């Protein structure tokens, strides 16, 4: 969204934050590989999946998370695949194709019983993501677009997000990562994919 705003693709005045996403590790039910922390992802024989860092935000967050905690080089060798979307990242666990994914805490609520969340230490989380909404600069029906955003932000809209496990206020998410920035940009290190 920051990029979209910079390039003038959205009307900056209309940007709203609908829900917050905190990075977490997703593992298979029962946590068979006993992954307790970010560092455990570097254990030998652990298969890890992340979103495609170049195209999927959750993948980009994963790389940032690893880089900030000095684990990128250790964990990278365990990354067996990149998923093409957030949902596909979660699917890697649901289909038991990997032992762990770096995703959002909310993954465990998408497929209850098929994925468990391992929370990161609060100081390990550099950045919290959010789901924003804004009116596109190319809209042909500004009024309807605004009305939709108003609905998302209304009590009714928030109730729907809450129902599906999403944090809709800053406060709810802060407990996981008090020092993290919300949103903003992160540039992939040039050698992210090669040791």
């Amino acid at each position: 969204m920051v990029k979209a705003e910079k390039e003038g693709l959205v009307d900056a005045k209309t940007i709203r934050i609908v829900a917050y996403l905190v990075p977490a590790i997703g593992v298979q039910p029962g946590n068979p590989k006993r992954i307790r922390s970010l560092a455990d992802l570097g254990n030998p024989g652990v298969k890890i999946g992340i979103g495609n860092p170049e195209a999927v935000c959750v993948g980009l967050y994963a790389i940032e998370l690893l880089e900030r905690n000095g684990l990128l080089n250790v964990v990278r060798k365990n990354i067996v695949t990149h998923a093409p979307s957030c949902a596909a990242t979660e699917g890697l666990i649901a289909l038991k194709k990997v032992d762990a994914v770096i995703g959002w805490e909310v993954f465990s609520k998408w497929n209850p019983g098929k994925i468990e969340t391992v929370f990161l230490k609060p100081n390990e989380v550099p950045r919290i993501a959010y789901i924003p909404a804004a009116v596109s600069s190319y809209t042909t029906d500004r009024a309807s677009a605004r009305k939709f955003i108003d609905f998302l932000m209304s009590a009714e809209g928030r109730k729907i997000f809450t129902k599906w496990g999403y944090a809709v206020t800053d406060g709810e998410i802060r407990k996981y990562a008090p020092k993290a920035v919300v949103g903003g940009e992160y540039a992939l290190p040039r050698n992210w994919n090669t040791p």
Partner: protein
Amino acid sequence: MSSRGSSTGIAGERAFKLATLSALAILTLFFVGIFVSLAAYTDWTTFFSILASKEILGAIRLTLGTATMAAAISMILAIPAAYALSQTKFPGKDVVDTILDLPIVVSPIALGAALLVFFNTPVGLGIENNLIKFVFEVPGIILAQFTVINALAVRLLKATFDGINPRYERVGRTLGYTKLAVFFRITLPLSRNGLLASAVLTWARAIGEFGATMTLAGAMKTKTETLPVAIFLNLATADVEKAVAVVFVLIVIAAGALMVLRKMTVKREVV
């Protein structure tokens, strides 16, 4: 005006010819139009630097390597299988025929998904853990391509073997050759065009395989990035120039394969 009068006679014949030729022209223009728009989109100076990039060269190498393997394995299995299907009568042949046809009509992504699920079963896990790792690995690309193209190879080869007059093989037998020797000395040489055609077509199809590859082997940059996966990844990051460059690579490979095929088969026609 009588439609009957115009549909018979020379006028009707001309109208019919015109209609069929128009359809042909529209189709040809459609594809030429697509290629021209691609060419127009391409900035040729960056095109070659993209082609020479490590990522794309790697993708080309990976694609050619895996497709060649997949096509080779397919042919080795499909030749005897198609021969059996063509020349032998056995109960349940229709069922076998249908099963072997399924992969041609079933969506490749469905085949990929089926393979993915298979590797969750005890047997699949046993293979993964003790023999070869397929899921998210390069052998997975070969397996995915093989799964998609094998039926095509069997189909093309069966048609070839169906078209062989059994008298050739019979003469061969009376000239002192065993059934096996006749197969290698007579049947295969007689099938030369069909063998070439199915090898080239299945190979080209393997090069273009995306759905099953993506599902089984994943789409990890530089690791399981075949040319079609490269298009997908680069479109996902809105790197259209790179995607278009890869499209061109695929078109050139396909056109080359078809031209080679035409060159090699035109010489010999069946007596």
